């Protein structure tokens, strides 16, 4: 059993982290950095304003970057018949989805947290703010990964599924965004705990909701 989980995780990471079509983990990171770079151009070089709003921009950029790989998270495996082959071998959809959430998080969470360092420099964030942003991302990105995989499974096989997935993720990510970005406000550190709580709820639901969605898509 654990051997199968390791094989699934290895394959998922090869697809999501290292590339293939879509550029692997690099694309979301570059997207994230370019949003962080554009923001000072848009609002002007007002250092106090940038420092005050920069943390929120990083959160929005992280959310948008998490949406980028949605269309290749689940749909290709349904299309190419992998899920059918797993089902024949007694590997449940829930297990595959749980492994996929982990692989998806590994391929965008830690890279985004690394990319936050140069982004914070671009926006002139203070070290204290940066620390809270990083902790918030650590607590929030697993939830974003779970949400992304769930929604990708729900919209797999639908016409315009990729665009729909993005639209669906944004409202459902609002709690993570509110608590995560809210933890940057003065006295808002408890937001970190709430971000983590929202993440845990999403992580608990994802394998079952995603697995049911894959079975429903099989028809």
């Amino acid at each position, binding site marked *: 059993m654990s*051997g199968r989980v390791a094989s*699934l995780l290895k394959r998922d990471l*090869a697809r999501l982290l290292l590339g293939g079509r879509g550029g692997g983990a690099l694309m979301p990171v570059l997207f994230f950095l370019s949003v962080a770079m554009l923001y000072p151009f848009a609002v002007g070089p007002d250092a106090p304003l940038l420092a005050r709003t920069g943390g929120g921009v990083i959160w929005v950029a992280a959310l948008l970057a998490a949406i980028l790989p949605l269309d290749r998270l689940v749909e290709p495996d349904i299309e190419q018949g*992998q899920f*059918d082959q*797993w089902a024949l*071998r007694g590997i449940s959809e829930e297990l595959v989805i749980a492994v996929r959430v982990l692989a998806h998080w590994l391929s965008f969470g830690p890279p985004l947290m690394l990319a936050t360092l140069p982004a914070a420099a671009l926006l002139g964030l203070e070290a204290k703010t940066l620390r809270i942003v990083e902790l918030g991302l650590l607590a929030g990105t697993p939830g974003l990964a779970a949400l992304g995989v769930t929604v990708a499974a729900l919209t797999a096989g639908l016409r315009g599924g990729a665009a729909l997935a993005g639209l669906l993720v944004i409202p459902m990510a609002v709690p993570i965004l509110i608590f995560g970005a809210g933890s940057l406000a003065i006295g808002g550190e408890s937001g970190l705990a709430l971000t983590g709580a929202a993440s845990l709820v999403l992580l608990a639901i994802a394998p079952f909701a995603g697995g049911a969605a894959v079975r429903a898509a099989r028809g």
Partner: protein
Amino acid sequence: MQEVKIAIRELACRRGDRLLFRGLSMDLNAGQAVQVAGGNGIGKSSLLRIVAGLAPAFAGTVERAGAIGLVDERPALDPTRSLGDALAFWQAIDGTAPDEARAALERLGLADLTDVPVRYLSTGQKKRAALARLIGQNAPLWLLDEPLNGLDVHAVALTETIVREHCAGGGIALVASHQPFALPGLRSLALADYAA
């Protein structure tokens, strides 16, 4: 060897609003092979998916004893990875012995293609790769959906030989194909007889 069988009782299949076939009963025991014949859209693939347990039956039951190996039009190999990596994934899942996997590749003429990304393979080569995956799975029940599509004359004969050996070894093969499939003792099931 453990008991292997497929027992189909009064099976009916519905796709959307249409009843495709009904009242289908059939027994397959160790060493037997059946070709499901019939025109396009008559329900051959649906029958295989129901037998595999991947689709619900509208009515009736399917009993299976033994693991199922399925080859259909989708090879279930990652298009962006090399053939060797894509097959190695399934070998790890299925616990295939490396010698056996290499022998299957050589036999199917794929040994020189392991570095080629799956998306660059031809239809017939992908079909052979799916057969290599099936052989490595070591499942006694083979469900083959149009296994000869896209194969050249040599590969057709090779596929027939592989299925014959599988049945001779006590396996079961259920082949859905509109093309003739040469196999001694192959029973034919005309799905049109059960059309609703």
